[in-house]
């Protein structure tokens, strides 16, 4: 019963539409419409800047989820910001021609900036893959240094250094890389030193590793030490060498300096007393 009623109404409605369609409009044609708007200005062409971020943890393992990296830039006084998706894809849309400083940030990873020349036009500017490295989270707990006579001759000596660190126990997957700078000055650092000793951990299975730096005679890099002199040692956690082969540097337009990437980690200053 209800179905029949519906069909009846449908037929009736259809009849009304058909009859209205058969009526023809009569009268005088209206005036011409207004002209179209102007085309876009040539100087205001825009297109996006796009690319991918690949996250790599502090031990150089590539991550499969690359989301939530904040990618930001400025255009004039406007600040623009987007986030990557799980594949690492980002798109900063509608940018005019110009040079952009694009910043990449995510908690737990070293931030960086990339300068991009952009010419707008019909295509988005694809800048490829930007690799972001996990921040070195290892900290120094303690370090003891002893100067010992070399077992190989009567002149050489070596510094035997026992270092304890935080973070996961040292294995092949959590290898740490170390730079040790030696100096007669307590102001020793990566730019002010007599001798650089680079080393790495092995498969200790603990949070402690032992390293040995050898010295010939009574000198460190032509600086003579006498019994009782203090030798300062500044030790840094550095990003893995292997990763450094792939590392880039970025140009800081605030300081006009090139910044090596990824960044150096924790450091500790210790000393030992020279003995003849």
């Amino acid at each position: 019963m209800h179905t029949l009623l519906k069909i009846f109404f449908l037929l009736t409605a259809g009849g009304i539409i058909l009859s209205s369609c058969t009526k023809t409009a009569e009268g005088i044609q209206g005036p011409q419409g207004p002209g179209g708007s102007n085309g876009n200005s040539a100087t205001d062409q825009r297109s996006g800047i796009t690319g991918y971020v690949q996250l790599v943890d502090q031990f150089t393992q590539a991550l499969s989820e690359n989301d939530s990296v904040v990618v930001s830039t400025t255009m004039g006084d406007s600040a623009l910001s987007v986030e990557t998706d799980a594949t690492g894809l980002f798109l900063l849309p509608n940018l005019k021609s110009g040079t952009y400083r694009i910043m990449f940030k995510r908690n737990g990873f070293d931030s960086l900036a990339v300068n991009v020349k952009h010419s707008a036009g019909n295509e988005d500017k694809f800048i490829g893959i930007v690799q972001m490295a996990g921040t070195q989270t290892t900290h120094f707990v303690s370090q003891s240094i002893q100067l010992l006579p070399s077992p190989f001759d009567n002149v050489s000596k070596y510094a035997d250094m026992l270092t304890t660190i935080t973070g996961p126990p040292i294995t092949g997957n959590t290898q740490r890389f170390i730079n040790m700078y030696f100096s007669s000055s307590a102001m020793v650092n990566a730019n002010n030193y007599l001798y650089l000793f680079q080393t790495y951990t092995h498969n200790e299975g603990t949070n402690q590793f032992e390293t040995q730096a050898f010295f010939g005679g009574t000198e460190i890099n032509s600086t003579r030490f006498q019994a009782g002199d203090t030798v300062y040692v500044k030790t840094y956690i550095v990003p893995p060498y292997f990763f450094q082969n792939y590392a880039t540097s970025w140009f800081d337009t605030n300081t006009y300096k090139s910044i090596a990437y990824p960044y150096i980690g924790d450091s500790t200053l210790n000393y030992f007393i020279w003995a003849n």
Partner: protein
Amino acid sequence: MPGPAGPPGTNGTDGSLLDTGTVYGNLVVYNEFSWPIADSSGVSVSLNVGSTVHTTTSDASGNYYFHGLPSGTYNLTYQKTGFGTMKVFGISHSPGSSINTEVNEVYILQDPVKTAIDSITVNETYSYVQVRIYLDTSSFSYIQYQYNFVLLIGKDPTLTQANATYSPYNQFISPDGQGTYSVIVDRGQLGGDDHSGGTYYLTVGTCNRWLRAFANPNPLFDTGLSGYYIDPSDGKYVYPNLKLSPNTITIQ
């Protein structure tokens, strides 16, 4: 009574900057043995200006030019029959000064023909897996370069450089003096640092330009210089002349 006014006309066409300039670059053509071909002519290079395709051809030195291009961002495609299709994305062209826009050098790599692999076999012992690669070397005038093979081993039946657990980038596949090529892989290395046994899949491919594969940590091949590109649609590395698929063998 006149009807209402008609709709507005279509918008005027977008303005374009009067300045135009040249986008140019150089390419090097390599044969399947990784040797540069002296004559680099005949590579078709194309780009789009709006919906219009502009095409030019490289000269014998590998130079190519697009004159009179308006300001914009351009994507270039390089094609030659028998060679992998190379692409370059995101060239920023802002003409108006005396400096034209130079595209970094790219490599055009021949697809494998003589170096196409006929078959591979695997001999397993308790601690090693020996992989032998067969291809017809009868027409070779010199020995196939050892870097021209890439070996991937992994747990995924559809192996790619991204999911391979092992790829010997420092353990090259060498001629074995019997017309084949071989490499011996330590079983303990198959699964990376946590070898857990089970079924592994193995693929050998040919390529050129000293291609090395880094399975881990960086899931990419290193072709030395500009022998690959990154696909903007998925962010994956594309190796235009790498042929991997037909040689999958299971290691128990």
